[in-house]
């Protein structure tokens, strides 16, 4: 059986990649995708923990399912907002959406 550590490392790497993406990308859609990556890392964590540590093996899985659901809703919402921004400004670059500052 694959040791738990492997899952955790995978999850951590994915999470870090997601964070990197959020920090480095300028396109709103790409940022959104990076956030999805982070959420997926969390899901892996939950499922792995559930499998290895939780006697019921169910809590983590349920959590993962919910995360996926919520993430889907989130993406839907976020994309709608991105589109509206795009309509207003003809860009999806977050750096250009910086009229409010200081």
């Amino acid at each position, binding site marked *: 059986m694959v040791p738990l550590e492997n899952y955790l490392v995978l999850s951590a790497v994915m999470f870090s990649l997601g964070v990197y993406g959020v*920090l480095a990308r300028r396109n709103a859609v790409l*940022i959104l995708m990076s956030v999805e990556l982070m959420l997926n890392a969390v899901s892996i964590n939950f499922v792995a923990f559930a499998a290895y540590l939780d006697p019921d093996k169910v809590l983590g899985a349920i959590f993962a399912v919910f995360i996926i659901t919520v993430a889907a809703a989130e993406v839907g919402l976020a994309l709608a907002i991105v589109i509206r921004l795009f309509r207003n400004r003809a860009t999806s670059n977050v*750096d250009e959406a910086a009229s409010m500052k200081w």
Partner: protein
Amino acid sequence: MGAEEAWLLAAIPAGVFLVLALFGRALPRGGDYLGVAAILSSFLLFLIVLVDFLDTPGKLGPVVNDIEWSSIGESFDLRMGIYVDPITIVMFAVVTTVALMVNIFSIGYMKGEPRYYWFFAVLQLFVASMLLLVMADNLLLVYISWELVGVCSFLLIGFYWEKRSATEAAKKAFITTRIGDVGLLIGIIMLWKATGTFNIQEIIHHVEEGAVGQNYLFAAVAFVFLGCMGKSAQVPFHVWLPDAMEGPTPVSALIHAATMVVAGVYLTARLLPLFEVADGALLMVTIVGLTTALLTGFMALAQTDIKKVLAYSTVGQLGFMFVALGAGHPAVAMFHLMTHAFFKALLFLGSGSVIHATHHNQEMDKLGGLWKKMPITGTTFFIGSLALAGLPPLAGFWSKDEIFVVLNDKWGVWAVAILAFAAVMTAFYTTRLFIRTFMGTPRDKDVHEHTQESALVMTGPLMFLAVLAAVSGFVVFHGVGKALGFPGGITEFIFLPHHGPHRYHFDLAWATASVVMGATGLLLAGWMYWGNSIKRSTQLAEAQPGLYDLIRNKFYFDELYQAGIDRGMLGFSYVVSWFDRYVVNDTGVDGSAQVTGFSGGVLKYLQTGRLPNYAMAVAVGVVALAVIGLVVRG
């Protein structure tokens, strides 16, 4: 009614002051009659007190009457009361008599002046405060009345407030004496600290018991004496008194010659037991007195303003009194105080009469030959001058003579020499004053023509005072005293309890010396100024220009003070103001506000408006917290 009720003396004028101050404007003639009536009743009360006092069984013991005033817990019990003893009686006599004369005189002199009622009102307040001062049984009450007379002096010097010079003089008088008063208050509190009481007799008692250390006592006494010097215009606080002549002349007579300025002498006399216990205190008093007598003698030589001459002479005579005190003889000082009060009041009122008659001309250079025009004023002034010069048998002779005697006994001949020189100068400038004003021919025809003798309301007091100036010296004799109710004469009447009475002895040698001093000054002046000529004096001045300038400019005291105030005090004030504005306020207070605002201005640029930066902040925050949690704390 007895001496216990002596406080009524002060209460009546005080009440009249309130009436005049509040309603005087509405009263016919400004209520001057009320003023005179108040003083007159004080005078009569004084006579009653005197009689009662002299009749008291137990031989002239002090009369005490005090009440609980305030207290704080157990620690601070304040009683206020009156203390009537011979010194007080003498002061009563001087104050009420001169005040009465001055009040009557003022009716004529101040006629038609603006704020006529106000003048009389403040005069009443002054009399009340002065009487309170001399009968106070404790130093706190002394200080209170001490300050009140100062305010009256301020108000009256500044009576002609439209004149800038009068205002400045009033300010100067108040502040100068106030500086002395700082000392006085410090001294009073030091004495309180050492003895736990303000009551003068108790303090003396404690001190004589040796309850106070020598150095401490000397310091306390010196501080008290500082106040006396300020009030009595002793060098170096003398500068205010000549300027105070800006006030109406009756005021100069009453306050700045006869009564208020002698408060310092009075207080020193009252506290003399302390001075005697404190090593060196008497010497200090003597030195101050001698210095003052000498310096002001010089200063008076070159003055041309009648009142200024008299003012310097007043300061000089106060010096004489202090010398007497320094010799340890309050009786002698008080005696001179009394005679001086009469003849100096006379001189001032006489000069007031002249000034009034010549329509406010008080420069000797424009006067002269007035005797014929003003015979009564001239005659009385002549008597006053001779008394001041110290010629027998006038009052000044007897008292001044006594000072020489006691001074010689105590400090020896060197002190006598200095004082003798001062006495010669006194005779000199007095004669000069008289000659230049009343003798010779008129120098300003215009002034002379319009001059006429003053009305009876003014000459009456002059004559009365002239009589006193002539005869009041005789109270020193046993016989006279006995006839009046105090056998042994005034010097035996006033004595310090533990000194024992000091009976006056006529000493021909000293009397002769004294006459010689007076005559020298007189003749010298006559030689120099007789016949309407100032040729000799001018030559003298030209021969010694440096000395003349020095004297003429009063040893540059005023200039020194002016520089000290401008450069020192005001400069310091400017520095403090600058410091307050720019360092404390702009840098400290506003500065901290600006730093706060500025840091906000810097920090706000963290908010770049760009999303990745925000995300970075979140990430950095988490990482930082985690690292701290793991590394620092773990």
